[in-house]
């Protein structure tokens, strides 16, 4: 292939070849840009997550000290604390971490491909779709609040994924006529979300009082009754989809530009966007089936990551880790900050996330004025 540019060599040899702000890391065929922040922020988030898990696990009717929890986690401890930590308390934190990571990652994906920092799986109706599926199983499948066994283990996640996918397909079909860009997708998402909310209300009215109570608790987003079973679906989803997302982060970077520019760079934008969207839907739906719709994690964590890493595009890995850390810390706060009252994690994330959303709106208004 012809190389079009023959550069005058004198100019090149005068200065060492380098591009400011883009230090390289190169190992064999693998290469990338080295930024200290890209390593230290995820590392700090992982440490914060570990601390949250340890603190969360130690709390309870039978308190266990921090060193003891750490001891158990690294394979030590006596059998009583091992049982309490690993069997009873660990699932709660692990489910929280997995749900947070899945939501953070899904939020980063959705914000990137819609090029809108205010977008999230909630706004696109994916969460509502997943919620509708899960509520349908809880209400229609159980007798007086007794969804259990395979129905709870497979039925709820499966219905969530199905509901989330259906909502996404509906949004996609209604919005796709002019490509997937811009505000059309978001507007359609808000509409679909409204329809699904009324569907959920209808299901709740139809349900028995016990089922409805359970469904409402579930709809606020709670880690309260988490078991290892709850972790399974979202755990598998993350195990498979996190590597997929890291590969897809390559076209993802270009999708943050306008469609013409992205296509001009050789990105098959419709295929890449669809793959990313399906990834986000699967993550959101499995996370929702595990703990209910935990509000604002998917919206706020990618934006937090963008600010900490000072990048233009929502960073995928950092958003996932921050999502996990924020969710487990929110659970710790919800369980301990209000004395004997234990608040579900979804209320805490909403209480922190809503003002943050307002702050974002105010800031973007200010930026536009100057």
């Amino acid at each position, binding site marked *: 292939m012809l190389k079009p540019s023959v550069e005058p060599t004198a100019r090149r040899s005068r200065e060492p070849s380098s591009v*400011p702000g883009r230090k*390289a890391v190169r190992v064999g065929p693998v290469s990338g840009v080295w930024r200290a922040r890209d390593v230290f922020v995820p590392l700090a988030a992982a440490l914060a997550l570990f601390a949250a898990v340890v603190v969360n696990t130690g709390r309870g009717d039978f308190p266990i000290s921090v060193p003891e929890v750490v001891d158990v986690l690294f394979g030590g401890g006596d059998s009583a604390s091992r049982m309490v930590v690993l069997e009873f308390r660990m699932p709660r934190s692990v489910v929280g971490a997995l749900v947070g990571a899945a939501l953070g990652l899904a939020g980063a994906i959705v914000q990137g491909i819609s090029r809108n920092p205010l977008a999230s799986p909630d706004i696109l109706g994916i969460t509502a779709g997943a919620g509708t599926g899960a509520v349908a199983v809880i209400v229609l499948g159980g007798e007086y609040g007794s969804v259990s066994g395979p129905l709870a283990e497979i039925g709820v996640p499966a219905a969530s994924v199905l509901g989330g996918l259906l909502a996404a397909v509906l949004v996609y079909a209604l919005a796709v006529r002019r490509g997937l860009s811009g505000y059309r997708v978001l507007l359609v998402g808000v509409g679909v979300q409204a329809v699904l909310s009324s569907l959920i209300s209808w299901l709740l009215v139809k349900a028995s009082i016990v089922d409805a109570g359970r469904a409402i608790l579930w709809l606020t987003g709670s880690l309260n009754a988490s078991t290892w079973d709850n972790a399974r679906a979202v755990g598998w989803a993350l195990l498979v989809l996190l590597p997929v997302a890291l590969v897809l982060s390559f076209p993802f970077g*270009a999708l943050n530009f306008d469609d013409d*520019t992205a296509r001009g760079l050789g990105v098959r934008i419709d295929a890449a966007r669809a793959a990313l969207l399906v990834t986000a839907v699967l993550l959101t739906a499995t996370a929702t089936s595990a703990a209910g719709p935990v509000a604002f994690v998917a919206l706020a964590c990618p934006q937090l990551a963008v600010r900490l890493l000072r990048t*233009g595009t929502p960073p995928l890995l950092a958003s996932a880790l921050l999502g996990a850390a924020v969710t487990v810390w929110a659970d710790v706060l919800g369980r301990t900050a209000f004395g004997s009252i234990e608040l579900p994690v979804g209320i805490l994330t909403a209480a922190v996330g809503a003002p943050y959303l307002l702050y974002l709106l105010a800031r973007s208004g200010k930026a536009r004025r100057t």
Partner: protein
Amino acid sequence: MTETVDIKDLAEPGPGQPAVRLRAEGLTLGYGDRTVVHGIDLDIPDGSVTAVIGPNGCGKSTLLRSFGRLLKPMSGQVLLDGTSVHAMPTREVAALVGLLPQSPTAPEGLTVADLVARGRHPHQTWYRRWSSEDEKAVERALRRTGTYELAERTLDELSGGQRQRAWIAMALAQDTEMLLLDEPTTHLDLAHQIDVLELVGELHRETGRTIVMVLHELALAARYAERLVAMKDGRIVAQGAPEDVLTEDLLREVFGLRARVRRDEESGSLLVIPLGRDRDRLEATV
């Protein structure tokens, strides 16, 4: 209209006849059921600077988009080295043809260096994202466009002219033999327009790149392009050397404009002195 040219002829041009690597054949383009470009045949000579001119809505940007594979033809085809661009993989086209859209948008807070580095996308893979070739090409593009000193600034900190130079640097880093520029001078004042067009001219002289651009400023198009293509209502009205295309008759015909075309003795460039709209023609076309 339908000269059938053998592909062999394209690869080996006759003496005195420049090679043609990019061409449109019976190209009809549109959006939905609205046809914008009607069966155009157009050859872009290799290593030339071509400017497409014409009134708003004449289909010049649409034509450029289809050259860059952004728009699928309703009929006809765009041939790149004898193959339809729509039959080629997107990445392969992107490694040969660079494109700068009319008003490109980048994510907020992106630095100039990161923007320009994005131009390397067609040469990268998911695990090879910053090779030493990438680094060299980006440094070259930054230096050549005079944006090296701005590399660590974010796009929103730049002036309009600087920002446009940064975008051109991105297209340059793509290292393609053909470059399509859709109104690269919009929203710029005259000095910055000249700035951008001088840069385009330099690129062409130093690297022999084939450049096709859509321009509004007629005198500037005549000054910086070797060939003009004048379009009206989705058809090509005239093409050739600027002094042959940019005539008083053509301005009347294409733009409905009464104007005087003069040559400035000192610089040798063409001047367009508008006198007013051509009332008769205006009424006839509206």
